C-alpha cells in the first residue's frame, strides 16, 4: 500500500444548462480511481456550483498510481430519470510521482464531453503521499522521469546515457468490440479514451522498469504512438533513451542567460550544447531485400539510401589505429545493448564523433487479430526485425550506433507499413558507461575533433566504401575526408560551421496503386516502395543542389499508404556546411540533341535553373570563401566520378561527360530529360517558391544563421483536406495536386503570420494521411518565432521589399533618438508594416498591440524596444491611463464586476484570471530560462458529432476541436503550476467524416513537457530598473506572459 491519492473537488463554473425548465443545473461529481468511486453532494440549481468537498482519499499501489488516470465525471442530478453526464476530466497523476516535478495539481480543468466538447470547467486539487517502497521485485517504476524533449533537458546534466528503451502494449479496440453494436458511439469513444489513458500509463510504467534495470533515472526523447489497427486491435508503443540525469543546482539556473540557445551554449555552463555531426550517403543504388515470411505476415523490407552489398561489417576495422581503439571502447559499451540506438537529436558535447548517414528500413505487414493481448509477440517481433536491419545498415556504414532514431507506421485496412529511421553515427564512450573512461583516450578524442567539422568526417574506410561516394578533404581542417553531401535525421550541431542560412526542403511524391486485397496489396505496396524511396531521394538531392546547399538535417521521410495510392513526403532543413565541398550545379541533358528547337528549350531551362541557383545563393547568403584547388590537398584516391542521376532505368550515356559544366569546377548533377515525366520533374523543381521576404523556415529546432530570437512565439496547427477529382488520376496529376497542396499551405502560413516578420517557422512538421479514397489530409504543426529586426536588416538588405526598407529607416530613427520616444510612437515604429488605427489605440487602454494586423504576443513590442528606458516609460504611460479610468468604479464591489472591470482598464494582462501558457514544439523558449520540468503531458481525445452542418461543417468541427485540445493541454500545464509546454507534438490527428449522415469524428493525440520558465528580460528588468519596477509590480508580470 505505498501511496495515498487525495482529491478535492472545489467548484465548477460555466456549466451548461441541463434543466431546460429552470435554465439551471443540479451538478455533482464522481471521482474515480481504479475501482473506487466517491461522490460529492448535489449542488442544486447553479451553473457555478461550489462543492468544496472533503478530501477523497484513495489508498493504492504505486503500480496503479502509474497506470490509472484519475477520472472525474460531472453529472446533472435527476430525481426521476438517470443522471445525465455533463462531461469528464482525466488527470494523469504521474507528474506527482517523482520528487522534482509538481507537488500538487490544482486548477481549473475544462470538462470535456466527446459529443459536446468543452462544457464548463471544474476546479480540482490533487495530491499524492508516497511511501518508500524497498521491494526489489516491484512492478512500479515511480520516480523515473520522462521527457519528450530529444536532447538533455535544459536544467539537467547527463551522467550516463544508457541507451534505447522500447515497449509496446496491445489491446482490443473498444470501437470494434461486439458490444459496440448495442452501446452508443459516445460510450464507445469514452471507453476508448479511458483505455488508451490506461495503456499509456501501463506503457510508461513498463518503460520505467526497464530504465531502472539499466540503473537510469530518466527517459529522454520519449515518443509514444498509437496504432489504430482497426479490427485487429489497438497498439500503444513507445521508444526513448534511458539516461541518468543530474539536476543542476537551482541557483545557477536562475542566472539570466542570453536570448538564443546558441549563445546560451557559449556563455552558460549549464546547458549541454548538442555537438554532433553526421554524414550521409547519397544517390546510391537501392538494395531491396524481399522475402516472404509466414503466410499472413507478408513482409518486405526496404533499406534506404544505403548500399549494403559492399560494406561488410568489418568496414571500419581497417581504419587508423586510433579509430579502431575508439571503436573498440565504444563498441564494448554498446555491445551489451541489443540496439545501440538513441532517440536524441541533440547531444552533450563530445558524445557524437562522426556521422555516417541516414539509415532507414521499412517493412510491409499484414495485420491479423491480436489473439492474446498479454503476449504482443508478433508486433514485438516485427519491430525487432526492423531494428535489426537498421543496426546492420549502421554497421555497413562503419558506425556502431544510430542517433536521431524514430519509428512510425502507416495503416490502411489490413496493410501496415512499419518504418524506422535514424542517423548512423560513431559515439564517444564518454557518456555511455558508468564510471570513468580512459582519460587519455577521451582527450585524444577531443584533440582529434576539430571544432565544427569533426562530425562531417567519414566514419567508414575510404578504400572500402559502402557505396560510391565522392570524397574530398575537409574544407575546414583539411585533414580528414568528407563526403560531398550529408543527410541526417538529427538537429544541426550548434558548433557546426555553417555558411548563410538554411531552408526547409521538401520532396513530395504520389504513386497510384491498384486496389487490392491482403497479400496482393502488400506485394503491390512493397514493389512500389523502393521506387518511391529512390524518387524522394532524387528530389531531395535536386532541390538541395538548387538551393546551393550541401547538407540536410532533421530528415524525416513519411510514406503513407491509402486505398489506391501511396504518398511520400520528406522534409528536411538544408544548409551549407563549410566543411563540405561546394555543391555542383544541375546540368540538363537532352536525349535527342538533333532538333534545334528542342535544344533551345533545353538551354532555356538550363538558364532558368542556373538563375535559380544563383538567386537562392543570394537569398540564403551562401558565399563560401573561394578555395583554390591546390589548397584542398592531395589528390583523392578514387577516380573522379560524376554523380549521375538517371531516370528509372539507368542507361549508359557517354556524352554526359563531355557536357560543359556551368557551375564551376565541381561536378554537376546531370538531369537527363528523356521523357515528359522528366520534363515535369524539372518544372516542379522550379515551381517551389521561396518564402516571402522576412520569412525563413526549417524543420529543425533552430535556424542556422539566425540567433537573435525575440520572445514572440506562435505555435499553430493547420489542417487541410482536399478531395481529388477522380477523373485525372495519373501519377503526374497527383504529384501536381500534392505539390500544390503543400505549397499553398505554406503560402497561407506565411500570409497569416505576416505581422510577425521578420520571423522563422521552426520545427515545421508535415504529416500526410489518406483517410479515404481521393482524400488527402495534410497536418502541419510549427512555431513561428520573430527575431530581432536589427539583425534582419543586415541580412535581408539586398532583397528587402519596400516595407522592410521603411522598417529600417524607422528603426534608425528609433535608435537615434531613443529618449525622445513617447509610448505612442513606439508601436508605430515597431510595426511599420501594420496600418495605423489611431482610434483603436485610444479604445484600447493605449496598448500598442491594437495597431497590429494580427497580434500574437503583445509583450513582444517590449522586446523590440531598443532600450529598457522606453519600455519603462511606455508601461508607466499605460498604467497612468489605466488608473485614471479605474478610479470611478473601483470602489463599487459587485461580485463579478470587480475583477472583470479591473481587467478592462488596468494594463493588459495584469488582472487576467486565465494565465498564459505558451506551447512550442521546440525544446526551449526564446528569451527565457526553463527552471523546472513538471512532467510529461500525454493526452488523447476523441470528438464526434452528429450535427456536422450545425457546427460549421468539417472545418468548424475540427477548428473547435483543435482549439479545445490546446485549451485542455494549457489547463493541465497550468494546474501543474507550469507556464509552458515544450517539445509539444501532435502525434495523431485522425479525422473521419460522413457528410451524408451529418457526422464526423476525430482522434487527436498530443504530448510535450510541462515546464516553468522565467523570462530573462524580467530578471534583467529587476536588476537594472529596480525602482521603476517596484512602483508597478503588476507590470513585470505582464512581460512574463
Amino acid at each position, binding site marked *: 500500500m505505498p501511496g495515498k491519492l487525495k482529491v478535492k473537488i472545489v467548484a465548477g*463554473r*460555466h456549466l451548461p444548462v441541463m434543466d431546460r425548465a429552470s435554465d439551471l443545473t443540479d451538478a455533482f461529481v464522481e471521482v474515480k480511481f481504479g475501482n473506487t468511486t466517491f461522490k460529492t453532494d448535489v449542488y442544486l440549481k447553479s451553473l457555478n456550483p461550489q462543492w468544496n468537498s472533503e478530501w477523497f482519499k484513495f489508498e493504492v499501489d504505486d503500480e496503479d498510481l502509474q497506470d490509472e488516470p484519475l477520472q472525474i465525471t460531472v453529472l446533472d442530478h435527476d430525481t426521476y430519470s438517470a443522471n445525465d453526464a455533463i462531461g469528464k476530466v482525466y488527470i494523469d497523476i504521474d507528474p506527482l510521482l517523482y520528487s522534482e516535478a509538481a507537488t500538487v495539481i490544482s486548477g481549473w480543468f*475544462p470538462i470535456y464531453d466527446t459529443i459536446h466538447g468543452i462544457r464548463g*470547467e471544474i476546479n480540482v486539487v490533487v495530491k499524492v503521499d508516497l511511501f518508500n517502497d524497498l521491494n526489489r521485485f516491484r512492478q512500479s517504476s515511480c520516480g523515473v522521469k520522462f521527457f519528450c524533449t530529444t536532447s538533455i533537458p535544459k536544467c539537467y546534466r547527463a551522467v550516463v546515457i544508457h541507451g534505447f528503451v522500447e515497449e509496446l502494449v496491445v489491446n482490443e479496440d473498444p470501437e470494434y468490440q461486439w458490444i459496440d453494436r448495442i452501446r452508443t458511439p459516445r460510450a464507445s469513444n469514452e471507453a476508448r479514451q479511458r483505455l488508451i489513458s490506461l495503456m499509456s500509463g501501463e506503457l510508461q510504467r513498463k518503460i520505467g522498469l526497464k530504465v531502472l534495470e539499466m540503473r537510469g533515472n530518466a527517459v529522454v526523447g520519449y515518443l509514444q504512438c498509437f496504432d489504430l489497427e482497426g479490427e485487429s486491435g489497438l497498439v500503444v508503443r513507445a521508444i526513448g533513451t534511458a539516461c541518468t540525469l543530474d539536476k543542476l543546482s537551482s541557483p545557477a539556473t536562475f542566472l539570466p542567460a542570453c536570448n538564443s540557445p546558441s549563445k546560451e551554449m557559449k556563455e552558460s555552463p549549464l546547458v549541454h550544447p548538442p555537438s554532433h555531426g553526421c554524414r550521409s550517403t547519397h544517390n546510391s543504388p537501392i538494395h531491396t531485400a524481399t522475402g516472404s515470411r509466414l503466410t499472413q505476415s507478408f513482409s518486405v523490407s526496404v533499406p534506404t539510401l544505403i548500399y549494403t552489398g559492399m560494406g561488410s561489417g568489418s568496414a571500419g576495422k581497417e581504419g587508423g589505429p586510433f579509430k579502431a581503439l575508439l571503436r573498440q571502447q565504444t563498441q564494448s559499451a554498446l555491445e551489451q545493448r541489443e540496439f545501440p540506438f538513441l532517440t536524441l537529436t541533440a547531444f552533450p558535447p563530445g558524445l557524437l564523433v562522426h556521422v555516417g548517414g541516414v539509415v532507414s528500413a521499412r517493412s510491409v505487414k499484414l495485420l491479423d487479430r491480436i489473439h492474446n493481448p498479454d503476449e504482443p509477440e508478433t508486433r514485438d517481433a516485427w519491430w525487432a526485425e526492423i531494428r535489426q536491419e537498421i543496426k546492420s545498415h549502421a554497421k555497413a556504414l562503419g558506425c556502431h550506433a544510430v542517433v536521431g532514431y524514430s519509428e512510425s507506421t502507416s495503416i490502411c485496412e489490413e496493410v501496415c507499413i512499419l518504418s524506422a529511421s535514424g542517423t548512423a553515427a560513431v559515439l564517444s564512450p564518454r557518456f555511455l558507461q558508468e564510471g570513468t573512461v580512459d582519460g587519455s583516450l577521451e582527450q585524444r578524442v577531443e584533440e582529434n575533433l576539430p571544432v565544427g567539422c569533426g562530425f562531417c568526417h567519414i566514419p567508414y574506410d575510404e578504400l572500402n566504401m559502402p557505396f560510391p561516394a565522392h570524397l574530398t578533404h575537409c574544407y575546414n581542417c583539411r585533414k580528414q575526408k568528407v563526403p560531398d553531401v550529408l543527410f541526417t535525421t538529427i538537429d544541426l550541431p550548434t558548433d557546426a560551421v555553417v555558411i548563410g542560412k538554411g531552408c526547409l526542403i521538401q520532396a513530395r511524391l504520389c504513386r497510384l496503386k491498384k486496389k487490392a486485397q491482403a497479400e496482393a496489396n502488400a506485394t503491390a505496396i512493397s514493389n512500389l516502395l523502393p521506387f518511391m524511396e529512390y524518387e524522394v531521394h532524387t528530389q531531395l538531392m535536386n532541390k538541395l543542389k538548387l538551393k546551393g546547399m550541401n547538407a540536410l538535417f532533421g530528415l524525416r521521410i513519411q510514406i503513407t499508404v491509402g486505398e489506391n495510392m501511396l504518398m511520400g513526403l520528406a522534409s528536411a532543413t538544408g544548409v551549407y556546411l563549410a566543411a563540405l565541398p561546394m555543391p555542383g550545379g544541375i546540368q540538363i541533358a537532352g536525349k535527342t540533341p538533333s532538333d534545334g528547337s528542342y535544344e533551345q528549350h533545353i538551354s532555356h531551362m538550363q538558364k532558368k535553373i542556373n538563375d535559380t541557383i544563383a538567386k537562392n545563393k543570394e537569398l540564403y547568403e551562401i558565399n563560401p570563401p573561394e578555395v583554390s584547388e591546390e589548397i584542398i590537398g592531395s589528390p583523392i584516391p578514387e577516380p573522379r566520378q560524376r554523380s549521375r542521376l538517371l531516370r528509372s532505368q539507368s542507361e549508359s550515356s557517354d556524352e554526359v561527360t563531355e557536357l560543359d559544366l556551368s557551375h564551376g569546377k565541381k561536378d554537376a548533377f546531370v538531369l537527363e530529360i528523356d521523357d515528359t515525366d522528366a520534363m515535369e520533374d524539372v518544372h516542379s523543381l522550379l515551381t517551389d517558391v521561396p518564402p516571402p521576404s522576412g520569412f525563413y523556415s526549417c524543420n529543425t529546432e533552430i535556424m542556422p544563421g539566425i540567433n537573435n530570437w525575440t520572445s514572440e512565439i*506562435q505555435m*499553430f*496547427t*493547420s*489542417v*487541410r483536406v*482536399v*478531395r481529388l*477529382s477522380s477523373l485525372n488520376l495519373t501519377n503526374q496529376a497527383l504529384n501536381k495536386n500534392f505539390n500544390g*497542396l503543400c505549397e*499553398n499551405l505554406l*503560402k*497561407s*502560413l506565411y*500570409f497569416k503570420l505576416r505581422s510577425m516578420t521578420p520571423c522563422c517557422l521552426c520545427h515545421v512538421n508535415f504529416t500526410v494521411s489518406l483517410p479515404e479514397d481521393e482524400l488527402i489530409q495534410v497536418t502541419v504543426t510549427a512555431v513561428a518565432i520573430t527575431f530581432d529586426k536589427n539583425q534582419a536588416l543586415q541580412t535581408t538588405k539586398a532583397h528587402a521589399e519596400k*516595407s522592410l526598407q521603411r522598417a529600417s529607416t524607422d528603426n534608425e530613427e528609433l535608435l537615434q533618438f531613443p529618449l525622445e520616444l513617447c509610448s505612442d510612437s513606439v508601436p508605430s515604429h515597431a510595426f511599420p508594416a501594420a496600418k495605423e488605427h489611431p482610434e*483603436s489605440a485610444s*479604445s*484600447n487602454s493605449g496598448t500598442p*498591440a*491594437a495597431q497590429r*494586423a*494580427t*497580434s*500574437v*504576443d*503583445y509583450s513582444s513590442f517590449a522586446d523590440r524596444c531598443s532600450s529598457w528606458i522606453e519600455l519603462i516609460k511606455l508601461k508607466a504611460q499605460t498604467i497612468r491611463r489605466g488608473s485614471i*479610468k479605474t478610479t470611478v*468604479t473601483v470602489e*463599487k464591489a*459587485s461580485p*463579478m*464586476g*470587480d475583477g*472583470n*472591470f479591473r*481587467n*478592462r*482598464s488596468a494594463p*493588459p*494582462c495584469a488582472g487576467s*484570471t*486565465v494565465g498564459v501558457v*505558451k506551447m512550442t514544439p521546440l525544446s526551449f523558449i526564446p528569451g527565457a530560462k526553463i527552471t523546472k520540468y513538471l512532467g510529461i503531458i500525454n493526452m488523447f481525445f476523441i470528438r464526434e458529432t452528429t450535427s456536422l452542418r450545425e457546427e*460549421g461543417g*468539417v*472545418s*468548424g468541427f475540427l*477548428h*473547435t476541436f483543435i*482549439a479545445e485540445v*490546446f485549451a485542455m493541454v*494549457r*489547463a493541465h500545464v497550468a494546474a501543474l503550476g507550469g507556464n509552458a509546454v515544450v517539445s509539444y507534438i501532435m502525434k495523431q490527428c485522425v*479525422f473521419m*467524416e460522413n457528410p451524408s449522415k451529418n457526422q464526423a469524428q476525430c482522434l487527436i493525440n498530443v504530448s510535450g513537457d510541462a515546464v516553468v520558465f522565467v523570462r530573462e528580460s524580467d530578471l534583467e528588468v529587476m536588476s537594472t530598473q529596480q525602482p521603476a519596477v517596484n512602483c508597478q509590480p503588476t507590470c513585470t508580470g505582464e512581460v512574463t506572459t
Partner: protein
Amino acid sequence: MTSELDIFVGNTTLIDEDVYRLWLDGYSVNDAVALRVRSGILEQTGATAGVLQSDTMDHYRTFHMLERLLHAPPKLLHQLIFQIPPSRQALLIERYYTFDEAFVREVLGKKLSKGTKKDLDDISTKTGITLKSCRRQFDNFKRVFKVVEEMRGSLVDNIQQHFLLSDRLARDYAAIVFFANNRFETGKKKLQYLSFGDFAFCAELMIQNWTLGAVGEAPTDPDSQMDDMDVDLDKEFLQDLKELKVLVADKDLLDLHKSLVCTALRGKLSVFSEMETNFKNLSRGLVNVAAKLTHNKDVRDLFVDLVEKFVEPCRSDHWPLSDVRLFLNQYSVSVHSLDGFRHQTLWDRYMGTLRGCLLRLYHD
C-alpha cells in the same frame, strides 16, 4: 482538387483587425475577400486569391466561435478555449459593441422589441448598413438593455461591469438604454438635424440630475421594489415640476422675470430686441414643457417640444449661440431674485439640465 477542410489554429488566437471590421460590418466571406483584394493586400504580400479566401474563412470562423462569448464579455475573459491577450480581448469587445451613428439614430428612443427588429430591413436599406450588422447592433442594444434594465446603481458602471466596455462606449450605451426606457421621440423630421452625440449628451445630463439615482438617496428599504435608479426619471420630481407653472401663470412674476433678464442683458445681446419681444413666448414654452412632464406622452415628446418651443424660434431670429448661452444663464439665475417664487431648488434642478441640453441642441 477541392478543399474539403482548411483550418489554422494558433495557440494564441490570431485576430486580424481588418477582417474583424469586415465581419462586424456584416459582409459575407466572398464580399470580404473582394474588399480585401481591392485594398491591395495581394500586391503588398504577394499572396494569391486562394490564400486570401482561406485566410478570410478562417478568421470568420474564429469570429463566429467568439461571438457567443462576446454576448457576455466577462465570459471571454474567463474562458479557456481561446488564448487571447487581454488587450486583444478588450479590442474584440469594444469593436463588437461599437455601433454606427446612422443606425443608432434610427432606433434611438424606440422600443427594443421584436416589432422594431422587423423594421431593420428598412433601416438597412435606408442607411446602407448591411442587415447583418443592423441585427448585431440592435441585438447589442437589446442585450445591454435587458441586463441593466432592472439593475440598481449607476447605469454607466453597470454597463461597464457587465460588458467591459470603455468609459466612452459605456456612456453611449447608457444613453441608448435611457432613451429606450423613456421612449423619447427622436425620429421626427424636425429632430433630424440632431446627432446621436447631442442626444447622448442630454441623456447624460438627465441621468445625472433628473433620475432617482441623481438624488443620491439610499433607498429606505433595500428590498422594496424601487424604481431603477438611473434608468427611470424621478416621478416625484416630474410631479413637482407643475409648481413651476406659476412663473408664467402669474403675470406679475412673468413681467418681473422679464425685466430682470432684460436689465441684465441690455447691451450684451446682439439680438436684444428679438429677445425682449419673444421673452414671454420662450419662457412660456420652457415652463410649460416642465409642467407637462407628468404625462408619459409628453415626456416622450420632450425633445420635439424643446426644439419647437425654443430652438426654432431663436433660430428663426438668428440668435448666435453665445447669445443663447447668455440668455439662458440670465434666465435661470434671475429666478433667484423673484421674491414670490419658492421653488428655487426645483427650478435649478430643472433648468440646470435643460440649459445644458438646449445649448447642445442649438445648432443647425
